[in-house]
């Protein structure tokens, strides 16, 4: 049984209330930080922990905090990114639903470390039930003196507010989120300046994911060094993985980073294998944006070594044979699933969610959706596959924010690993409307996967 830092008490009845959360040791981190540590010492502990941003980018949280500008007389803000919208990711919703106080406690400690007097939790608008849960928990915490003026008699003041979004994936991008929080369309800003210099209302701002902020609680309780002992290499600590798709037990799991992917998929402690006794065809390991991998490359590197659930191991082999940790949205596809249909679905998603600011993304995502629709419905030509490849290459790296890359990678990786399936749809237009391709050639174990740079 691996260590649980965030979900240890998830099954305790009433853990969503302040009373039970306190009984299980909740708000100790606030007491410790506010009474015995300076803000700089809290930042130092987070640096020592090696915690990396859990929203997808994996940037070290402590380092992000240390970039925050601190001009005299200017307000600083902490904004929690709870705009969880990456297909395949649902860990933040889970955490906020069942242990809202873990996020609030993390927000208090982190706001103290950054010197923020007002902090916001930006929750995607569809999560109205979670917004109500958080607002109730904030009211409880405030009534008990954990928020408001002069917290614990230390002279530190903090107000915490929940802000609903309006249903836009792009607002998970931190500068789009800040625009949205200012009451505008969610168009990402050109960087620099980074939010650490000019963020919300032009003031220095840190934007962190829900899970990153919740992880600050065990880091302060046990110390950054203790936290860093968990995990493997530069992937320290535990990570929430959202498991979905054709699995026996989909759901949210807290793993110690470094767990073998094979164990995660097949052991009864985690997903329990592929549902209905089917075979694994492919996985998307870190949310819809990361490259899709066939089963063999999911479980093992091209050289046959086992692949682990860690930032480094998942990206081993680059985009030729690897993928990314992303936000930890683990989607499993069984042998009955159609890669072309899924790629079309994802392309439609990115087309729908493109903010329209940059032409390569605005036009390219729509173009990709149309071509994939055509192939999926039996009207594709071989040239369409090359055109699709061409379009995705011209989106990648040519946009203000990473949504363009996020739209291009799933398409590129699907063609890279499952080109035979695309071609089958084109060569067998009628058959492909009533049958599925089944396990791809590449999905069966092969001796040595081709390691070529395709860029």
């Amino acid at each position, binding site marked *: 049984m691996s260590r649980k830092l965030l979900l240890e008490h998830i099954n305790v009845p009433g853990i969503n209330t302040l009373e039970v959360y306190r009984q299980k040791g909740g708000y100790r981190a606030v007491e410790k930080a506010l009474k015995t540590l300076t803000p700089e010492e809290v930042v130092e502990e987070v640096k020592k922990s090696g915690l990396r941003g859990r929203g997808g980018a994996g940037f070290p949280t402590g380092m992000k905090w240390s970039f925050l500008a601190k001009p005299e007389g200017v307000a600083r803000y902490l904004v929690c990114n709870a705009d969880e919208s990456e297909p395949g990711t649902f860990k*933040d919703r889970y955490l906020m639903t069942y242990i809202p106080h873990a996020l609030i406690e993390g927000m208090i400690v982190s706001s103290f470390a950054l010197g923020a007097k007002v902090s916001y939790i930006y929750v995607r608008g569809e999560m109205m039930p979670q917004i109500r849960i958080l607002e109730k928990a904030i009211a409880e915490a405030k009534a008990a003196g954990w928020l408001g003026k002069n917290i614990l008699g230390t002279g530190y003041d903090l107000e915490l507010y929940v802000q609903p979004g309006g249903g836009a994936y792009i607002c998970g991008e931190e500068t789009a989120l800040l625009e949205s929080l200012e009451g505008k369309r969610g168009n990402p800003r050109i960087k620099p300046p980074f939010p650490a210099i000019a963020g919300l209302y032009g003031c220095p701002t840190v934007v962190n994911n829900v899970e990153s902020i919740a992880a600050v609680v065990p880091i302060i309780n046990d110390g950054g060094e203790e936290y860093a002992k968990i995990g493997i290499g530069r992937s320290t600590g535990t990570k929430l993985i959202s498991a979905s798709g054709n699995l026996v037990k989909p759901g949210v799991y807290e793993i110690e980073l470094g767990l073998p992917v094979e164990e995660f998929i097949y052991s009864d402690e985690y997903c329990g294998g592929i549902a209905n006794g089917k075979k694994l065809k492919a996985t998307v390991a870190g949310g819809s944006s990361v490259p899709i991998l066939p089963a063999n490359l999911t479980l093992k590197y091209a050289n046959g070594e086992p692949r682990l659930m860690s930032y480094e191991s998942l990206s081993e082999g680059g985009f030729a044979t690897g993928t990314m940790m992303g936000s930890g949205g683990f989607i499993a596809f069984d042998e009955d699933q159609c890669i072309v249909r899924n790629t079309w679905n994802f392309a439609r998603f990115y087309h729908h969610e493109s903010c329209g600011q940059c032409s390569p993304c605005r036009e390219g995502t729509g173009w990709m959706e149309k071509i994939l629709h055509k192939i999926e419905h039996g009207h594709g030509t071989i040239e369409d596959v090359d055109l699709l490849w061409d379009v995705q290459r011209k989106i990648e790296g040519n946009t203000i924010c990473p949504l363009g890359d996020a739209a291009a990678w799933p398409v590129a990786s699907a063609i890279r690993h499952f080109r035979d399936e695309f071609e089958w749809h084109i060569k067998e237009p009628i058959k492909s409307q009533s049958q599925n391709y089944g396990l791809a050639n590449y999905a069966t174990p092969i001796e040595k996967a081709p390691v070529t740079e395709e860029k």
Partner: protein
Amino acid sequence: MLKVEEQTPVQFSSELLAKFDDVKSRYPEGKQKSALLPLLHLVQAEFLWVPTSAMDKIAEYLNIQPIEVYEVATFYTMYFLKPQGKFALEVCRTGPCCLVGAEKILDHLENKLGIKEGEVTADGLFSFRGVECLAACGFGPVLQISPEYTFYENLTTESVDKLIEDLKNK
């Protein structure tokens, strides 16, 4: 598409305006525009959609230009720019939910309610549409019902039938 000429007169109750004031107090002086998204949600919860005249009144309340409200209301997908059913059903149609049968649920709703996506039933009770990922991929297929955004997981055609019956009797 937003039709600016379409005017449905609305009145904001004093209860609603009190909620507006509470939201506005969360932001620093002069940054009241931040209240825009929450205010639009409050209006939608009250009227079940966001008429243009309500947007104008919000602009007046926040002391901003009407266009600043229109551009936001049309950018975000949650705001209904035309009337919906009393129960607006939104089914997730993104990848992971489709792996476990979301498309079947959408087809079933279309047959069951006898309307196409985006239409309203003759009795005014129901409308439905497919929406993008609702962040509950492990419990799919899922749907939510506005304005409360009550959430239903692990849907089957049977559970959808039961849900519709329950809503009719509500």
